């Protein structure tokens, strides 16, 4: 490593702080520039980060800079496709925030473009890179719960800022099920070895008004191997909660992110065990970011990009998450079960909910 790889951020929202701080914690990386829809916002945030600013109008210029090696796409979801392709065209490796894109066709285009350009895509499911999930997975692989039968994933909080793009169906593509369900689903899948989800049995949603995004969703899924999964997401909770329960024929494992402190417990016929894991909740900036997965994620992607190996969370995972969540929107509309393979390639989740 001669000099740090340069990171350019596309998007100046809340999550841009996590990416900048994680890059700051990694000597192999250096955040150099940031773009936002509004020049004013780009300049404001870039000034705080001590990096250069540009607007989306001059995005190509930023991506073409000699000192930019990696692009982080953290713009509103509707723009991920365009921004990711722009970064690929500029020959950059790309980290894409979740959910990856709005439609399966967009996901396929991104995968094809990255392959052709010989660049790599990291899908930013931060929780997959936490010490908590790593330890939980380790215990499940070691047989702590026996044969996995059911997974319950819950992610809820009070929602993003009311005036933000998250509540605009055209920019967000969906609500809590797409935003928080993306975490809940992918982490649940990681915990049990990423089996193929075949079917959404049922999905119930509550919307923000008649045509607004979904504020809450509960979705029952089935995998090819017969594991049942429940994904519960909410932007309407008074208190934050985020936990993963993995039920097997020999016990239950619960990995809890929220409420803090994080914890990992395994319950079997022999009793309950609190499992230690490194870097739990801590009042240090870097260990806190590690406990949320941002530092591990950033380090992993940087290593993969350097060594040209496919990241553990890749565009393929992003596409799969979108497909399963989109099937949930279809099931919510029809009140019937939906085969995941039947999701049309060109419709956004909210369009599937509207029918």
């Amino acid at each position: 490593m001669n000099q740090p790889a340069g990171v350019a951020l596309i998007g100046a929202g809340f999550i841009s702080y996590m990416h900048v701080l994680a890059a700051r914690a990694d000597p192999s990386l250096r955040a150099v520039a940031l773009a936002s829809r509004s020049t004013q916002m780009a300049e404001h945030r870039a000034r705080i980060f001590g990096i250069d600013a540009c607007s989306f109008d001059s995005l190509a210029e930023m991506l073409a800079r000699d000192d930019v090696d990696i692009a982080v796409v953290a713009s509103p979801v509707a723009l991920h496709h365009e921004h990711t392709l722009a970064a690929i065209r500029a020959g950059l490796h790309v980290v894409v925030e979740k959910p990856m894109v709005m439609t399966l066709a967009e996901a396929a285009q991104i995968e094809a473009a990255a392959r052709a350009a010989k660049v790599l895509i990291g899908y930013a499911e931060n929780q997959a890179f936490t010490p908590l999930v790593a330890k939980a997975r380790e215990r499940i692989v070691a047989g702590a719960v026996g044969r996995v039968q059911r997974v319950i994933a819950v992610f809820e909080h009070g929602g993003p800022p009311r005036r933000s793009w998250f509540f605009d169906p055209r920019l967000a593509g969906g609500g809590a099920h797409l935003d928080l369900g993306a975490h809940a689903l992918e982490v649940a899948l990681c915990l049990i070895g990423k089996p193929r989800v075949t079917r959404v049995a049922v999905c119930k949603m509550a919307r923000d008004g008649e045509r607004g995004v979904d504020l809450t969703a509960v979705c029952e899924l089935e995998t090819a191997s017969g594991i049942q999964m429940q994904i519960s997401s909410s932007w309407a909770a008074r208190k934050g909660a985020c936990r993963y329960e993995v039920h097997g024929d020999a016990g239950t494992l619960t990995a809890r992110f929220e409420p803090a402190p994080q914890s990992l417990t395994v319950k079997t016929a022999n009793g309950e065990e609190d499992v230690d894991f490194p870097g739990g909740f801590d009042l240090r900036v870097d260990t806190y970011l590690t406990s949320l997965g941002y530092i591990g994620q950033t380090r992993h992607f940087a290593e993969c990009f350097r060594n040209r190996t496919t990241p553990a969370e890749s565009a393929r995972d992003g596409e799969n998450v979108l497909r399963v969540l989109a099937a949930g929107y279809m099931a919510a509309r029809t009140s019937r079960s939906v085969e995941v393979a039947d999701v049309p390639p060109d419709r956004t989740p909210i369009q599937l909910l509207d029918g």
Partner: protein
Amino acid sequence: MNEQLRVGIVGCGEATQALHILTLNSLARRFRVEACSDLSPEVMGEVASRCGARAVADPLELIGDARVDVVLIATPDSFHADFALAACAAKKRAVLVEKPAAPNARMCREIAVAAEESGVPVLVGYPHVYEPAVQRAIEIWGPHAALAYGEFRCSLGPNPRYTADALQTIRSPVRDPWPAMIAQLDYIAAATEASGTGIGMSHVLAYGLLAGLTIHDIPVLRRVAGEPTSIDYARIRANGPPMSPLGLSIDVVFNYPRGRVWLQCEFHDVKSIDWGFHLRREGLHLTVRYPTTYAAAAPSECIARYEKDGMTVDERHAGRYETGFRREWCHVYDVVAGGAAPMTPIADAVKDLEWVESIHRAAVSHDRGEHT
């Protein structure tokens, strides 16, 4: 004194309502509030109607308005630079930016460069520098006196302890946790830029306390006692609940060529205030006491104790009605209308923020066991 300057206010929070507007109203022959802007439409509308100003939702529109002569920037700290730069670009006649001028020296320097290039006087709102008692202390102490020992203490409680007494201030009725969360992230960004990501949340909160509170004392220290040569010692202690600035203590010892100054900041959930400083040298002991915070008309006092004719003399200097805020705005007027040199120019405030960063780095390095 004929001209009445038109003030545009960006940020209508409690400091604007309880301090600046009262002060500007008391100086109505010199100033009138022309326009004001705030993120909260409710607060902006109420403040505008109270002082007969126009409400302008877009702060950049307010800054660009030719009917605004002087801009007061009293937004959350991380926006100061954005609006100060816009005011320089708009060639305003003067800008008063609340302390801290920016969350760090780098951002402050950017404003200073713009002020220099545009020729727009940008002053930092350090009311203590303008306090009559401090100005008297500077005179009594003299320019070249060698300091033996100084003690700066700020023991204060959280703002709501005092703003509850500031009558009829209005707060946004919308409960939105996001601006406060982003403001905290801004201070995480500033603190980690200064001292790296391997710091605790108490270090982040202490950075906020240094930039938000100790920043009052540093420019006074530099003006009265001169520039310290270095930091001998800095410690941060967090004795309160986790993730809360309550219970934070900061101790700094500054080295001087022939003496030292101990600067102490204590932030506890009490209303009583102990804020001021002592300076000693042979034959003179100066004491300055500040009044309670958020009190627009309370006086500060300066006591000079010395020996004369075999007697110990205590000389007390206190203005009954004059305050730092009134003096500050009078000075802004003198800068604009009389061509006076700014007493708290933005270029000099860079140094204050450099001290904030140096104190932080020294305290963090102490906690890491890196004694130098």
